[in-house]
């Protein structure tokens, strides 16, 4: 049976059975059960799950597609956050470890503006994005700008310090207890065949795609975009050409933080719960995504984010939940071994 045939039978639960692949149905069950028991007894972790998947359980095509969409959703959020890392790295040559916590700030600002200020949804979203963009500029001016000539390590430690500061301030104001938050996106789930796609997933995919397209256009088609590319290539030369480097860096932080705010909004609409440390894990994952795609490269961050999300989701689903993070980082290690600059790292023209 060819893959096309398998795909065309997606209405049914297909047994992805090795014997079925070679067309000898019927005589498989005994053998595969035996082998399955054998492997299960030996307790191979990941391996037996693959075996399990292919030989005995049978996995429906719907399930695979749904898992893929899950991966796309979390991947597109990673990509959105990774863009902030990669843009800042491209321009300021620093890893802004406080970036993940901007997501958290965005989540709390949205919560406060809707619950306490009773703002309409659209106004609250714009307000949230604006606050985060301003916060990004403010952090750069206060914490990073004075260190522009300092060794990279000093800047790195400062960034980690800012990250802790943001978390602690949030904890002081809102306490460490999680707050439940009713999603502002109420879109019914869509059913296509046997596949269910939750409304929030569709919104996330649309919003992140729009953001990424807009950003690409901005970088390639506008004057400020050209300035950003110029600064990332050669700061001194750009300055000589009359580009305001400080302003360009501020705009970069503003855009990066605004994207993080969008990610934060998507994040709490998805999980409906806010706590001071919520930005830490997505922040780290997005950083990995940025490195995977090639830090400094905008398309690289998008590719890296989506790839990371899909790998994570599929390995959690079909290999091992326990090992999914190990697999994700394993992929990163392999990519970096083969191509130390990341997947799209050498793409200098697109570098921001």
């Amino acid at each position, binding site marked *: 049976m060819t893959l096309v045939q398998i795909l065309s039978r997606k209405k049914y639960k297909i047994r992805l059975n090795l014997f079925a692949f070679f067309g000898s149905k019927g005589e498989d069950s005994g053998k595969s059960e035996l082998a399955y028991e054998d492997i299960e007894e030996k307790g191979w972790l990941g391996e037996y799950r693959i075996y399990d998947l292919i030989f005995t*359980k049978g*996995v*429906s095509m*719907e*399930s695979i597609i*749904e*898992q893929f969409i*899950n*991966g796309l*959703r*979390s991947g597109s959020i990673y990509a959105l956050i990774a863009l902030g890392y990669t843009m800042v790295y491209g321009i300021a040559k620093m890893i802004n470890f406080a970036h993940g916590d901007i997501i958290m700030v965005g989540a709390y600002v949205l919560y406060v503006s809707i619950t306490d200020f009773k703002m309409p949804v659209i106004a609250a979203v714009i307000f949230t994005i604006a606050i985060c963009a301003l916060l990004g500029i403010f952090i750069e001016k206060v914490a990073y700008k004075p260190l522009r000539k300092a060794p990279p390590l000093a800047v790195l430690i400062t960034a980690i310090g800012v990250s802790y500061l943001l978390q602690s301030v949030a904890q002081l104001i809102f306490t460490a207890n*999680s707050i*439940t*938050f*009713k*999603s502002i996106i109420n879109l019914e*789930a869509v*059913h296509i065949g046997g596949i*269910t796609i*939750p*409304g*929030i997933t569709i919104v996330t995919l649309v919003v992140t795609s729009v953001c990424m397209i807009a950003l690409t256009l901005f970088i390639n088609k506008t004057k400020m975009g050209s300035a950003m590319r110029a600064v990332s290539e050669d700061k001194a030369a750009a300055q000589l050409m009359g580009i305001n480097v400080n302003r360009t860096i501020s705009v970069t932080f503003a855009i990066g933080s605004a994207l993080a705010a969008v990610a934060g909004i998507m994040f709490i609409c*998805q*999980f*409906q*719960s806010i706590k001071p*440390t*919520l930005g830490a*894990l997505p922040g780290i994952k997005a950083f990995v995504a940025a490195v995977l795609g090639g830090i400094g490269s905008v398309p690289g961050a998008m590719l890296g984010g989506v790839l990371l999300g899909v790998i*994570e*989701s599929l390995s*959690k*689903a079909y290999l091992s*939940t*326990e090992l999914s993070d190990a697999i994700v980082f394993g992929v990163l290690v392999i990519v970096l071994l083969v191509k130390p600059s990341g997947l799209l790292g050498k793409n200098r023209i697109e570098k921001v």
Partner: protein
Amino acid sequence: MKKTFKKVVSLGLLGALVVASLAGCGTKNTGAGDGTFLIGGLGPLTGAAASYGISVKQGAEVAIEEINAAGGVKVGDTSLQLKLQFEDDEADGDTASAAYNTLMDKGIQALLGTVTSGAGLAIADQTNADGILQITPSGSAKDLTKNPNAFRLCFTDPLQGETMAKYAVETLGLKKVALLYNNSDDYSTGVAEAFESKVKELGGEVVAKEAFVTDAVDFTTQLTSIKGTDAQIIFAPVYYQDAAYITTQASELGMTLPFIGSDGWDGVLDKVVDKKVLEGAVFLSPFLATDPDTAVQSFVTKYKEKYNATPDQFAADGYDTVYVIKAALEKAGKTDSKDLIKAMTEIEVKGLTGTVTFDASGEPNKGAKFVEIKNGEYASKTVE
């Protein structure tokens, strides 16, 4: 000059220390003689687990007040008044050991504690060497009762798993179950493993076994995997925050499978936005403050009056443990720990967390109490 001053001060402090420790010796082994029975309590009153210790202490105090007001405990021919001496162990082994020594110096005659497992394991051999009756109200680690002097009031983790397995397979008749648990957490893993083996033993099948790690927020992958199987019910032995994420995301994915959980689910209603996602979920909880039972309501009223708070399961555990000690005293007719330990296996106590007897291994035998979420509220559920 300065040096001499330091010497004098340190000598003075040393002297004070010697006097203090001698004073400690002097008060040792008071107790039965003056018509009181002194119960020592050990649990965290400060630190991250403080709420557990404070609840147990307050629950125990309510019980002691009740008993003393009703004339105390009749031991042999005399009536004894109960007294509680509670020390803070910060849920830490070393602190617990020091605090236990303090209690022994004060002459405690039975030990209500420890509240948490880690602290209890650290002093288990010490209490056994002293031969004192020890009852842990809420420590669920298996080894807490390994010594003959130690008993437990609450369910162990494995017992919870077995109970829920029986509920799914036997009571509900659902043989294909899915398991979703936190594999970086002892409690969750312990309950999950016991559940899995019991399900198999009862002829059921765990068709999906999905794990996550602490602080995970995204359960869609695991839930989608479960959705792709022919599971009829999902068992999630997790804490309430995880349970909130799981049930909400399951509903978003259009899943309608029933959920069952462990006692970590207590509190889940406050963590979901839409209470409908929890409708019909069933979990174990030894105590429910909204239980209409008269004994429970009388306890809740007294507790609220005294502490201005609603009692939780730890408070009920503390309360019941005092009544267990009372029953052991009455049965033994003596106050020696040796006799009390012997009496422990012969008593039956009707407590807030159920009617309990103890076996020689120190484990409680009591019926499980089920809670069902109905119309967005916790409701107790009777299971045959």
